[in-house]
């Protein structure tokens, strides 16, 4: 049975088909939520809420976009809701392009394998850097660069224009690069 047939069965009320869709997309949704929240418990909560929304509204899925794009819209909304309810983190303003790209701050990077092996110190640095990004910038970065959606798909999933996506992506990449430059940049 292909995905279209499984979706049609799920829309007709077949619970086994719904469970199949959950199984097909749970890894993608969990990883996406984790990369936004940087917290396993929160990511699990967001994943549960995302699939609950899918189960409740699968009949409204028109099939005009891919199911994955539809799910990205849902999971992004849940991530944004969670971020709004958790205002503990102060997000960095990314309005100043000149401050983001400082030509004096360009060095060779030393990314020797031992430096990027998963360890708690690097994990903490990655967590803190991405948490400083405003949530919508974070989502654009993860959708485009990590999950590999096209600019058009990202714009559709986030209901933003293509120039808005490009501008957020540009600033998110530059900001994260600057944060990681503190770890990987060689003093020149």
């Amino acid at each position, binding site marked *: 049975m292909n995905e279209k047939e499984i979706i049609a069965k799920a829309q007709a009320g077949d*619970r*086994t088909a*719904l*469970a199949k869709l*959950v*199984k097909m997309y*749970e*890894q993608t949704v*969990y*990883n996406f939520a*984790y*990369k936004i929240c940087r917290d*396993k418990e929160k*990511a*699990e909560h967001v*994943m*549960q809420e995302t*699939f*609950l929304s899918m*189960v409740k509204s699968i009949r409204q899925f028109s099939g005009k976009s891919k199911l994955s794009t539809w799910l990205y819209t849902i999971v992004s909304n849940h991530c944004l809701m969670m971020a709004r309810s958790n205002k503990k983190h102060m997000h960095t303003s990314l309005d100043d*392009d000149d401050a983001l*790209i400082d*030509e004096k701050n*360009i*060095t*060779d*990077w030393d*990314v020797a394998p031992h430096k*990027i092996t*998963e360890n708690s110190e690097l*994990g903490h640095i*990655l967590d803190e850097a*991405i948490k400083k990004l405003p949530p919508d910038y974070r989502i654009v*970065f*993860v959708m*485009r*660069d*990590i999950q590999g959606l096209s*600019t058009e798909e990202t714009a559709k999933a986030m209901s933003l224009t293509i120039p808005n996506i*490009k501008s957020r*992506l*540009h*600033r998110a*990449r*530059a900001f*994260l*690069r600057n944060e*990681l*430059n503190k770890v*990987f*940049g060689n003093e020149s």
Partner: protein
Amino acid sequence: MKAKEKTTCKEVMDHICDTLGEDLDSPNCSSIKEHLEHCESCQKYYNSITETILIYKKYNVKVTTEIHAKLLNFLGLDDCE
């Protein structure tokens, strides 16, 4: 029409951020590519942006059997497998 002034590093860096992963072969990108080939500073910037993306890609989490079971239970679909 006056020819475009020499492409600056700032323009290149902005453009790298805009287009990384997209089509760098488009006509608009030719001067950027040429600049990139000859500018060490922009090459370093390009490489560090690429590494940033790769490092963030590396950290993944896995849905364990327990997390999967909890999810199906939460959705009331635990009898459907």
